[in-house]
């Protein structure tokens, strides 16, 4: 059997888990089952699901601390091609869902090895990419709405200062008194 070379049109492998997580879960499991019917798939380690204590380091002193617990699942599989060669695949997902991790690990193995019958997996990647793009657009829009134009504040300050200067230079004592009162310490 001639193996298909890993296609260069695929997104980077590091992004596959994120993209596949954004795809439809049911379609993902169906795709993995279909691939499991075509290839001999076995575990390379026991799949695990549960909580993971996330440790990070603070930015000031580099001291480690625990940020909190996150749900995770992990799977490592080997997909055997018809020539008898085992191709490894793995996934570590942020979800308490071992079945999902297994499905993504199987797809990871098939795509990274360039095995045949990967069309459905490619469609899922594309579906995930579209979903991520939609979510990215929504987030960008939300971010846009939080934008503060500090330059306007600066212009306002400048305008106030100019106005005060003009009033101070006008020779109007009432105006100058009012300005002094405005700046007086309330205590």
């Amino acid at each position: 059997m001639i193996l298909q070379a890993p296609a260069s049109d695929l997104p980077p492998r590091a992004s596959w888990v994120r993209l596949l997580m954004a795809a439809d879960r049911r379609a993902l499991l169906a795709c993995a089952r279909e691939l499991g019917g075509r290839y001999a798939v076995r575990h390379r380690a026991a799949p695990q699901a549960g909580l993971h204590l996330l440790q990070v380091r603070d930015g000031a002193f580099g001291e480690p601390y625990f940020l909190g617990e996150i749900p995770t699942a992990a799977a490592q599989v080997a997909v055997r091609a018809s020539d008898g060669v085992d191709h490894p695949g793995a996934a570590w997902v942020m979800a308490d869902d071992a079945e999902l991790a297994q499905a993504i690990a199987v797809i990871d193995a098939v795509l990274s090895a360039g095995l045949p019958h990967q069309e459905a997996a490619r469609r899922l990647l594309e579906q995930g990419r579209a979903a991520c793009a939609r979510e990215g657009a929504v987030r960008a829009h939300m971010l846009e709405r939080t934008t503060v134009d500090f330059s306007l504040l600066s212009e306002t300050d400048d305008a106030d200062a100019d106005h005060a200067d003009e009033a101070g230079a006008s020779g109007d004592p009432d105006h100058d008194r009012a300005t002094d009162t405005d700046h007086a310490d309330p205590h």
Partner: protein
Amino acid sequence: MLIHIDDLWQAASQQAVYRRLLASFAYPARVEAVDDLLPGVASERALLATLCDASTTLADPDRLLPSEDWGFLKARPLDAGAAALVVVDGRLPAGVDPTVGDVLHPERGATLLLVVDALEPTPAPTAAVLRCRGPGIAGERVLSAEGLHPTWLGARGRWNARFPAGVDALLCAPGRFAALPRTTTVAQES
């Protein structure tokens, strides 16, 4: 589960084996079965699947374990002189020097899994007949270990000479096992 996984790596089997393991240490030299829980699985694999995780260290100097097991065990491979768990072929002369801990840290003593041909609770003519005494044994308990090389008992005596430091042993035969904690005194019947 999307992909089949052997019973050996399932939590339910490991919990059942763990119960037997507790019983074996509570009643040293008593033969415990695992073949009813995991038919066809070597007892040392069943015990290691139960005991190991990513925080344990394991040595397999005689390469008794299938290489695929290491991914499931997740244990860190170490030299037999430093590992917490050491699986060795008990039919060969004693050739390892496991860690025994010290008086302040007896828990650092290794647990040795000695693979032998068969274990019987009665004297067998071709086996090493061990007469065991100590905590958990009312009087004396006999354990026949078929294939156990005689040098292991001498080595065990040296490792356990500075009690509470020492080494705990698990004799592993097809389908069954028995524990020999460091508190058990063993005399071999000649």
